[in-house]
């Protein structure tokens, strides 16, 4: 399974954004932009590269849907051409503001092309209208089921009104195409917001792949000061902008400033277009920033009081003014017309947007300080006016891109919409710092990345239930490990390991012509109609009795002491030993046997236990003193079982000079049977708690403890709270 991304535009450049992504048989076109810098065929993405069956004249079957992220022409400019001229009838998704504002941008562009430049029109007004009819508007976070398998969702991108990042999911494969986005809130828009999604692929813009920008407020102040200075001196300010977005942001800024400074200089919008755009902004105020949004009921922030409509005749009127004119990069149209007239005066000011496409006048003005600009062969403009560059572009900076990539942590990243050398640097950074595979394909290249796929199975309730209950196993690393590994590699902190192998109780069953099923191991027999066959291990092992005789004599009537009682005392000692040796596993001490997980040891009284094998010499130990522990266990606890057996066989269980801690621990086990736990629990002794919690005894069967002779106890905790009786019991009589 793979995701193929064919980059038709904005590959290692800015302009004509268009990426065609194929996921699990679905093909989505993200953006359908045009390049402002070209006038020939290069202005549109090369749609012929989109795979389609040969006898098809249009793209209806080869493209599942088109998604437009925002209304800028380099993202939507080629849409009417593609749908109406190339032919596409399928659904187009965009947010409500994008659907409302895109036709204005397209119509504006068409007019500039046809009416001013006299070009042959690529698409007509009718085309735009027809194209917009195919658009399905979506709300933010609205989860749209495009078809049975394809799901898309828009997230706030903050770049312009209605700009969105789009999430797409086909089957288990997921991706996000960011479009243009801004990670810091500005005057009228909020910052981009997205959920922490589990992504296979992120396609991100990278306009400012290496720039880190400072606070915007300083730049805003600078802009306002420049404008104020100019109008105070009677100059005219030309602000070439796109009709939408920047114009509104700057106008909010100016309105606010005008109010504060009590300025009366008129602010104009060219050709009514931008003023009408404000109408849209008013209705779409819920797509702006929180602060602006809250104003709607009392005073809609887009109700500009000082803004008026500009008339062509006012171009030569005396006196200061501020004019918003389209298009933004002075690539033609009204802003060029005004620029021609205002540029020769040193009193005037022209502000330029942060980014101008190569080939536009804006770009020429930005690069160096030209005094003369050649418009065409015959026209030359003297440029004496001041130039102020507005550098608050609503694109995220390098830090923002890194933040987003880090936040989403996709498996792969594709960078588009940027300049080649900078993208390469960012790509390196993403790969080295975040360890995420990153690509920066050029136009018409295809990047193929693997996608997630989940194997699906029907799970039984029992399995789900057992999985939903935590089933932690705590284990300490065995002492060998601590010596062998930990010392060498890391500090030997007592490594408590928590394992939770709930899933291992499940069994995946595949049967021909049936759905793959997951059942709990307990259910398996029922499902198969079989009977469980237990495979067990057993071994009746001889216990090192050692100084048992001595023990016998100390405990009085030796002849009467039956074998079982000796055995059970040994069992107690084994239990103590085990709780010392094994921290893992819950050692349960029942009266007649010990249990650790599936391992079970009991005193064997049978003369001919079948599990008591002949020892190596073929001789059974017939000694009367011999005590056997009959052990049995299942495969799961194999390792543990052999360890216990080796303890039984090799460690002398009598050990006269054993350390006080072992002694006391044993005593505590005795104590527990006297139900004096409460007294001990009052003590702060951690050690005690650790052992007793692991060794619950059968409470209702107090064991008889032999009278003791003298007491030698080295306390391992604060026993001051204990009463005398409890303290007296701290000695195991067996050993003394």
């Amino acid at each position, binding site marked *: 399974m793979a995701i193929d991304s064919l980059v038709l535009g904005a590959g290692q450049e800015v302009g004509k954004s268009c990426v065609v992504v194929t996921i699990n048989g679905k093909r989505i076109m993200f953006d359908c932009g045009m390049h402002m810098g070209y006038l020939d065929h290069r202005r549109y993405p090369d749609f012929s590269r989109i795979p389609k069956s040969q006898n098809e004249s249009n793209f209806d079957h080869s493209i599942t849907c088109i998604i437009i992220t925002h209304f800028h022409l380099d993202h939507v400019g080629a849409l009417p051409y593609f749908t109406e001229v190339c032919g596409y009838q399928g659904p187009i998704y965009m947010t409500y503001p994008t659907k409302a504002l895109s036709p204005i941008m397209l119509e504006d562009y068409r007019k500039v092309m046809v009416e001013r430049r006299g070009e042959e029109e690529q698409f007509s007004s009718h085309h735009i209208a027809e194209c917009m009819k195919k658009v399905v508007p979506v709300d*933010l*976070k609205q989860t749209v089921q495009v078809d049975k398998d394809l799901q898309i969702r828009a997230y706030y991108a903050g770049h312009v009104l209605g700009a969105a990042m789009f999430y797409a999911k086909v089957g288990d494969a997921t991706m996000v195409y960011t479009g243009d986005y801004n990670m810091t809130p500005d005057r009228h828009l909020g910052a981009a917001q997205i959920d922490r999604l589990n992504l296979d692929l992120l396609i991100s813009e990278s306009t400012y792949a290496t720039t880190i920008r400072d606070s915007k407020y300083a730049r805003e102040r600078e802009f306002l000061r420049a404008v104020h200075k100019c109008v105070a001196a009677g100059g005219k300010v030309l602000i070439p902008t796109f009709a939408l977005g920047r114009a509104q942001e700057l106008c909010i800024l100016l309105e606010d400033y005008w109010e504060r400074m009590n300025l009366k200089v008129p602010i104009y919008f060219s050709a009514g277009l931008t003023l009408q755009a404000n109408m849209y902004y008013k209705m*779409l105020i819920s797509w702006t920033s929180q602060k602006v949004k809250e104003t709607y009921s009392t005073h809609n922030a887009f109700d500009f009081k000082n803004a008026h409509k500009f008339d062509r005749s006012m171009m030569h009127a005396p006196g200061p003014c501020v004019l918003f004119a389209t298009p933004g990069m002075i690539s033609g149209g009204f802003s060029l017309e005004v620029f021609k007239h205002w540029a020769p005066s040193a009193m005037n000011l022209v502000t330029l947007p942060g980014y101008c496409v190569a080939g536009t006048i804006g770009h020429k003005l930005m690069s160096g300080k030209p005094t003369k600009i050649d418009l065409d062969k015959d026209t030359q403009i003297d440029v004496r006016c001041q130039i102020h560059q507005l550098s608050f572009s609503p694109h995220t900076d390098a830090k923002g891109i890194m933040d987003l990539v880090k936040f989403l942590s996709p498996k792969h990243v594709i960078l588009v919409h940027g300049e080649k050398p900078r993208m390469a640097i960012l790509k390196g950074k993403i790969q080295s710092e975040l360890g995420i595979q990153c690509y920066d394909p050029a136009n018409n290249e295809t990047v193929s990345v693997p996608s997630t796929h*989940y*194997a699906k199975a029907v799970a*039984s309730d029992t399995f789900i*239930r057992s999985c939903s209950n935590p089933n932690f196993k705590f284990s300490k690393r065995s002492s060998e490990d601590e010596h062998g590994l930990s010392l060498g590699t890391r500090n030997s902190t007592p490594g408590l390991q928590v394992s939770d192998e709930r899933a291992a109780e499940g*069994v995946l069953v595949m049967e021909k012509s049936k759905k793959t099923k997951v059942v709990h191991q307990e259910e*398996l027999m029922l499902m198969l109609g079989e009977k469980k066959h237990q495979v067990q291990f057993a071994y009746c092992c001889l216990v090192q009795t050692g100084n048992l005789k001595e023990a016998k004599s100390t405990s009085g009537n030796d002849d009467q002491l039956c074998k079982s009682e000796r055995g059970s005392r040994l069992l107690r000692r084994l239990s103590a030993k085990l709780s010392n040796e094994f921290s893992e596993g819950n050692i349960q001490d029942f009266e007649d046997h010990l249990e650790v997980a599936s391992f079970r040891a009991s005193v064997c009284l049978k003369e001919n236990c079948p599990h008591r094998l002949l020892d190596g010499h073929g001789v059974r130990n017939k000694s009367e003193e011999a005590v056997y522990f009959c052990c049995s266990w299942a495969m799961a606890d194999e390792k543990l079982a052999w360890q216990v057996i080796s303890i039984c066989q090799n460690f002398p269980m009598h050990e006269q000079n054993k350390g006080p801690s072992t002694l006391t621990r044993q005593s505590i086990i005795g104590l527990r049977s006297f139900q004096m736990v409460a007294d001990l629990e009052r003590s702060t002794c951690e050690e005690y708690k650790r052992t007793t919690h692991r060794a619950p005894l059968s409470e209702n069967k107090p064991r008889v403890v032999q009278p003791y002779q003298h007491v030698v106890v080295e306390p391992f905790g604060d026993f001051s709270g204990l009463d005398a009786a409890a303290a007296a019991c701290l000695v195991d009589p067996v050993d003394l």
Partner: protein
Amino acid sequence: MQKFSLPLHYSVFTVHSSIFKSFLFSLPSSISKSFLKGTCSVSTSSLSTACLVPMKLTCLSKGGGYHLPPCHILNICGFTILLDCPLDLSALTIFSPIPSSSEASYLDKESPNSLNCSDLLDLEEPLFRKRQKVEKSLDADDLICAVPWYKTVKNLHLWNASFIDAVLISSPMGMLGLPFITRMKGFSAKIYVTEATARLGQLMMEDLVSMHMEIRQLFGPEESSFPRWMKWEVLKLLPSSLRRLVLGKDGGELGGWMPLYRVLLSAADVKDCMQKFLRVKYAEETCYNSTLILKAFSSGLEIGSCNWTIKSPKGSVGFISSSIFDSAHAMNFDYHDLQGNDMMIYSDFSFLDAAEHVESDFDNASDCQELAKSLLNIDDSLEERDKLTFICSCVIDSVKAGGSVLIPISRLGIILQLLEQISSSLDVLNLKVPMYIISSVAEELLAFTNIVPEWLCKERQEKLFCGEPLFAHVMLINEKKLHVFPTVHSPKLLMNWQEPCIVFSPHWNLRLGPAVHLLRRWCGDQNSLLILESGPDVELSLLPFKPMEMKVLQCSFLSGIRLQKVEALLKILEPKVVLLPEDLKPNSSSITNSFSTFHYRVNETLRIPSLKDNSELEMATDLATQFKWRNLKQGNMKMTRLNGEFFVDHGRQRLLSGNLESSESRPLVHWGSPSLEKLLLVLSTRGIKATLGEAPSGSESRSASLVHVHHPNQALVEVRETITVISTADESLASIIFEAIGSVLDGI
């Protein structure tokens, strides 16, 4: 990602103490008792086995009409979900809008403490007389003269608020009762509501608070926490029709009465409640506890009102509230997105008010899908438009005659459309009659309707795309044809006031708000017109304003799915299970359906059979490729033990590869019966010498076969029908024998 759900729930059933008190007063009925029994077991489930708890639905209230949506509790996957929490504002009609009648004020002045036994005797006689009189016909004096209390869904108080895990709100009307439960101790549920509903609901609540504030000034400070009118002795004497409103049929409803939002009136309760909201966008997927995926689709009833779908690992549920297929202002009922759910809860009770006769001409023809679709397309809006046109003509007639028009209708959609229609009619006739909207929240409300294109019908959305205002009122305000004031006594209103005029103002129950003042002013004018939404208690509503000269126009508007469309709708939605209100039974019994139908009744918990026997488990591919498959001896089947870590994320159960070292692949469970010959053969191939031994004579091992192993070490294998025991002291030998046995058995 939540790895597992914690077992959190303890089941302690407590009854709201004050409710208990009122039960004592009002003779608890047998129904209530059985209901109590039914709910005791509600939250006993622990979340760990969440998805295995059966689904249950308890209808708490059928509601009544547009203003009082139904209220249910749904148990799904061990979670308790409250569906809507309305407030019965029509019950306010038992109160007098003004402290007028002498007798009532006499009663009111009685100090609350004086009502002891001896006083009771004194009071008995006049009150008794009063009652006698009233049984003939009600008059304004019979209304309760006190600061009004508000009637909540009484059955909801039998539930412990802290056991509610989530609340789903489907309309602004469905959230008015929320502040009563959000302020309860231990309430911690998440409240899901669409952004638009949250905003409209908030405005409605704020308006209610401000109107209540005003009436409180009229009546003076409230009495003790237990007002006099609620005392049994006083209630007994109420006219029977009023008493029924207070107590309900069985007397159980007294417990539902609450003082508005807080005794000390403030907007704090409202604010508090709003802060607990989780606002969702249109069709936004939200996830509750990693298990339930909630999604809201437009229901068409009002801006922002919605139908919810709940997806759980054990099946998906759609909840249909009152819905309108073809709305003139809000986004239409989006039933396409409700398709494919396992279960539908049909909770549109509007048919109860509509009283239509339905002839079902459905037969199970093959083209019933087509038929269904065509039936759904029958235009409702035409009829609705006709109603509005008629209202409009009445309004014009009235103002032409020099009378004023009062429209105390609170339905936002109706107001917005009437504004447009009346103003255009006035324009056509060139009549200069001002229109006023008087409400504390009107300005905000109108501004809000113009910024929610996402929740409006297609025609309104087109206006956005054309750059025109979504509703005409923006222009009307600009042109000074429509004036918006917060109260009747605002100075701007006094400056502007002009009669005849057309006034929209709350409240529709004619007990609160500016409508009361205006109605008192105009009720004697025979040229004036009052436009009311028809309801069961219109007579009672108008009681305090009698005798009335004013004309009254009652109209009813579509507020839900028409009965004849229910069948068609369900056919299209194709659920497996449908829960219908019992009241729908006579209409649906004749048709055999592809889905199974259950009928629910108020106050009864309906257990729903499980929708899915098994849930789906998704396994990461990298994990799945590592599985070591075992082919079974039976053939055609292979199996493997799972490993990895189990997650529940966004309603999906997933197994992802954990960083655990894969445990050994030795089988832990065996089945089948081993053949000894095969075993010996296998052992010998592994270099182990073994002989078949005779079973020892001991009784316990009669059915056992023994295999003695001599080389490389001593071992004994005891094979029985269902158990094999390997005894040896040699660890490696033990595991070789184990494997040998494993190879002659099936195991995993």
